[in-house]
């Protein structure tokens, strides 16, 4: 393992933020319980002792207020990283993010910039029930003026967070609570990963499984299961929702001639529906079957573990969808 260390997804996030904060004094953290309490998911552990109250700002529980305040600070040239304890709580700040943060640059015709990172866990952890479990990535990926990324690997979460912090535009950075403890190898040398580039996590010839965030890991598991049945699936990790790298997705579909889009958000109207529509629209002549779509059940997330497991997308749902398409 020359030049590589094994880190968790959480540790990779921390490494990325430490490096950027050390480099640029304008970068600061803001959010609920991120300082003294070290963050609900411990992503900001170690930051408060190192940087103090000036650069690690514990906020009152007022999502709209601190989102707007961070936006104003960004307009004045600082580079805030705002943590939402869960992306579900960012709903309280939707007016700030959509009507203000995302639109400033356009409304001012480019004279005001808003370099801000909005990060936090989106998606179901375990039995957090209806008000703490939804990702709503499609809500933000719907909005011009925002960039939206959802890394699925240790390498990506490190490299893409660096890109997000360096970006002069508002970036919504989706982490996943079920990925924080996942381990992976990270090159020791500093690097960044650009937005707008999807990647192939596993090559295959029979069908393309298209997803992002936790669902890319689910797709890898599904691909393993499918292999046992002699089906060679390709796993396309979208990584960046806005901008969206349709080229890589289409190239995979043109190779396999079949696709299933997999997402955790509510199935109806989720961002997976958008990817599905694009493939259907632009790759029609290359397809041997209608594009499949696997999403979260259209229910508020239930508490019971039995019901929750029923609601959240898993590899078995993907396998079933693939088998349906392949007949």
């Amino acid at each position, binding site marked *: 393992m020359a030049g590589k260390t094994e880190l968790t997804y959480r540790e990779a996030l921390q490494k990325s933020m430490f490096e950027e904060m050390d480099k640029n004094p304008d970068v600061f953290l803001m959010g609920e319980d991120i300082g003294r309490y070290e963050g609900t998911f411990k992503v900001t552990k170690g930051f408060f002792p190192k940087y103090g109250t000036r650069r690690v700002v514990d906020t009152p529980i007022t999502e709209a207020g601190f989102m707007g*305040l961070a936006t104003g600070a*960004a307009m004045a040239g600082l580079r805030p990283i705002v943590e939402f304890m869960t992306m579900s709580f960012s709903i309280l700040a939707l007016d700030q993010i959509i009507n203000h943060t995302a639109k400033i640059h356009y409304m001012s015709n480019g004279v*005001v910039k808003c370099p801000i990172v909005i990060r936090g866990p989106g998606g179901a952890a375990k039995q957090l029930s209806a008000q703490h479990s939804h990702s709503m990535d499609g809500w933000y990926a719907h909005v011009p003026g925002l960039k939206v990324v959802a890394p699925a690997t240790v390498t990506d979460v490190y490299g893409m967070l660096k890109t997000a912090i360096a970006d002069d535009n508002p970036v919504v950075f989706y982490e996943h609570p079920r990925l924080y403890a996942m381990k992976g190898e990270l090159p020791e040398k500093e690097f960044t990963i650009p937005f707008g580039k999807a990647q192939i996590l596993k090559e295959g010839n029979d069908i393309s499984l298209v997803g992002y965030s936790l669902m890319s890991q689910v797709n890898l598991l599904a691909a393993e299961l499918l292999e046992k049945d002699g089906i060679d699936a390709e796993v396309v990790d979208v990584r960046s929702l806005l901008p969206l790298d349709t080229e890589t997705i289409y190239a995979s579909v043109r190779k396999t001639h079949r696709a299933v889009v997999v997402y955790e958000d509510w199935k109806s109207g989720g961002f997976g529906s958008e990817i599905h529509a694009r493939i259907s629209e632009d790759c029609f002549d290359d397809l041997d079957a209608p594009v499949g779509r696997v999403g979260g059940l259209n229910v508020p997330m239930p508490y019971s573990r039995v019901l929750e497991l029923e609601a959240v997308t898993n590899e078995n749902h993907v396998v079933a969808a693939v088998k349906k398409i392949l007949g």
Partner: protein
Amino acid sequence: MAKQGVKNSTESPAVLEQYYRDMVFLRHFEEKCNLAYRQGKVGGYMHTYIGMEALAVGWLESIRKGEDYVITAYRDHAHALLLGTDPVAVMAELMGRKGGTAGGKGGSMHLFDPERGFFGGWGIVGGHIPLGAGLAFASKYRGEDRVTLNFMGDGASNQGVVFETLNMAGLWDLPCIFIVENNEFAMGTRLEYHAADPELWKRGEAFGIKSERIDGMDVLQMKRDAQRIVDWVRKNQQPYWVEVMTYRYAGHGAADQDRQLYRTKEEEELAWKRDPIKRLETVLLDQKILTAETVEAIDAEIVEKVDKIYAEADASPHPDPSEVYDNIYTDMTVEKGH
């Protein structure tokens, strides 16, 4: 109630004349905007500052222009103009022209000029208040001694995010002056129908923020109070909450055609007797700084100036349709086509 006017000004005659000229200019500019709206040159929503001129002049003459930060809602022409934004660019923006402050993308409600410290120009009532606190946060973070003027209307003072912001401003000692331009109406809803306690000045006190109510119809008193508060905030690096009593002679917006739905003609006539421009004019005439002739000459000069601004803006080109994709992001655009 607010204090009554200053009889003996301390400003020099030249400064007093400048306040007068600024207010008359704002009045004529806004009247021209109304005309442009009626002519169909300006579309959408447009909100004029007619009647409130003394308030903006008092505050903006009390700051370090270009260094201090200013942010306001959609009734924003006066703030931009007083900060020195090119009036032709302002008028052109209202007309949706390429040469406007935002290339025709913002319109009347979204004027920006960050080089002069002006950060908009916002359309969601109360939504920009945390942004203003963020500007103050940034200056404090950097150890600068700027102040931020964070203007809002009386209607905005009910928004939840305003209270959230006051809490943070009090908690973190942000050098931000929250200025409630209380013109007695939230669109068409009178203060007594929208505020549980119409003494809005009290709202800062719950957050440990120095708070007071002052008169915004007398520019000399306004300037005196504004300067005192700006100096205090700059020195102490703490927030301030100010309710400034004023009156909106105009409707809420240019599209507000029937003011009698929410107030009587008699009330308006009475309010016109408090016209801040006439009030200063009387002082200037009394002190023999101006004469009836110079008042007329100033008026004619400004009318001509505004006519020229209008003509120049109106002669300027519209944006090219392809510009619709420009400046959504700093470094990329969106996929093109419908």
